[in-house]
């Protein structure tokens, strides 16, 4: 686990510029939001997620998370079919703040075009550099 100015960026994951992470688990992927995202949103009080069987498309919204004052779209890091949805974060959205890379995961997706789409994501090293630039810009 690496911390970039207080934001956790674990190794072995892929990252999208929409603040989502992706972990390859066999022929499926697990996705969620990054530590940086949850810290920007703070106090997440509601997560609206699609049902299993729904398809996702890379770079397109699939759900929303809401903090007390703001709504943010969840944007899919890959295309595919949703196999599993973390229903626990729907009843306990604070898990997204407490453990974004663990208990706060959102979806398990069966990807349809993973190899090609991975090229549009950042690996660990690129994600660390990207986090540094985000912090520098004060976003």
């Amino acid at each position: 686990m690496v911390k970039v100015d207080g934001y956790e960026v674990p190794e072995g994951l892929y990252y999208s510029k929409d603040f989502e992470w992706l972990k390859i688990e066999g022929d499926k992927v697990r996705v969620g939001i990054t530590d940086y995202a949850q810290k920007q949103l703070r106090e997440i009080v509601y997560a609206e997620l699609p049902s299993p069987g729904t398809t996702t498309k890379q770079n397109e919204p699939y759900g929303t998370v809401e903090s007390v004052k703001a709504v943010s779209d969840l944007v899919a890091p890959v295309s595919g079919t949703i196999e599993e949805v973390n229903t626990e974060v729907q009843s306990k959205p604070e898990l997204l703040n407490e453990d974004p890379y663990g208990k706060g995961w959102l979806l398990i997706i069966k990807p349809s075009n993973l190899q090609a789409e991975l090229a549009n994501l950042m690996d660990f090293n690129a994600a660390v550099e990207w986090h540094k630039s985000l912090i520098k810009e004060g976003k």
Partner: protein
Amino acid sequence: MRKTQLYEIHKKTAKMTEFAGFEMPLWYKGITEEHLAVRNSVGIFDVSHMGRVIITGKDAASFLNYVITNDVTVLTPNSALYSVMCNENGGIIDDFVVSRLEEEKFLLVPNATNREKDFNWLVTKAEGFNVKIEDVSDKVAMFAVQGPNAERTLQKICTADLSKIERFKCTTARLADVDVFLSRTGYTGEDGFEVYVWNAPLDKPYNAVKVWNAVLEAGKPFGIEPCGLGARDTLRLEAGLCLYGNDIDENTTPLEARLSFVVKFQKDSFIGKNTLLKQKEEGVKRRRVGLQMIEHAIPRQGFKICNEKGEDIGQVTSGTFSPLLKYGIAMAYIQTQHAQEGNIVNVEIRRKMAKAKIVPFPFYDAEKYGYKRKTSA
């Protein structure tokens, strides 16, 4: 961007945001924590972005009674009231608290968004009245100390006996050895005070900083939190208080906004009276209501409201997740025939319909929270 006297402190400790042209704190520790500090104990807000206008002169009271809808003649010195100021069509130019400092001296506190608009309106309408209108906003800082422990906090550093100051009463005093004016008013639904630090110009903020730090120190045993605009908004919404620009504006009248308690029709004349009187006789076509979400969803400004048949019957003007109640709440305008308390309506949230119930203000149980609470903190 404009700044308040405390900008340097906020910048170091808060997440900042732009509001009405000011760079203001959105939150320090987080909206929920700050919100609950105020509901359960005490919090302090920098509200120096709001305006402060002093009206003096022989005609001060009669002038105010002409431009605002409420009646300042009932005020004795050191007391305050809430009012709206309307245009000729009965549209709300602003809502604010007016305090009577002396027989011929009043303090009016416009919303930040309306500082220039109100001042210009007042000056234009003052023709023929013997009054002087002075904008002292940049010379005077203003804080709100709110919550059931507000009195206990301030009493530690205040020369006046605050237990003698009733709600909507005021006093001059020394607070942390600084000259202030205190009114037992606020925008959170809780007991509390608004503190005006007289000698605190933007370029010499020393007195403002001194009072701010002293209140935080005095409130430490009560767990005081500095609070940002985020908590200010969620607190006022739970209490059912209007935000100018969201819930009221020049296209809404006080009768539609259910603020008729500040419209005194028995006064001889005031701007907007004829239109409002006509509206009162004919009845309003829509009215402001509270919505409590039944389904697990958060209503936001601009969301459409439909009846069971799917017909458009209104719109959300402010909405949030209630940090105290832990569900979505909103203010909305709904067509009068659908606006009965207890009615179930549909709020359109991202193309889906979510059920909500029309409820009275405040949203919380007034026996447990707010200035009328029966339990002590």
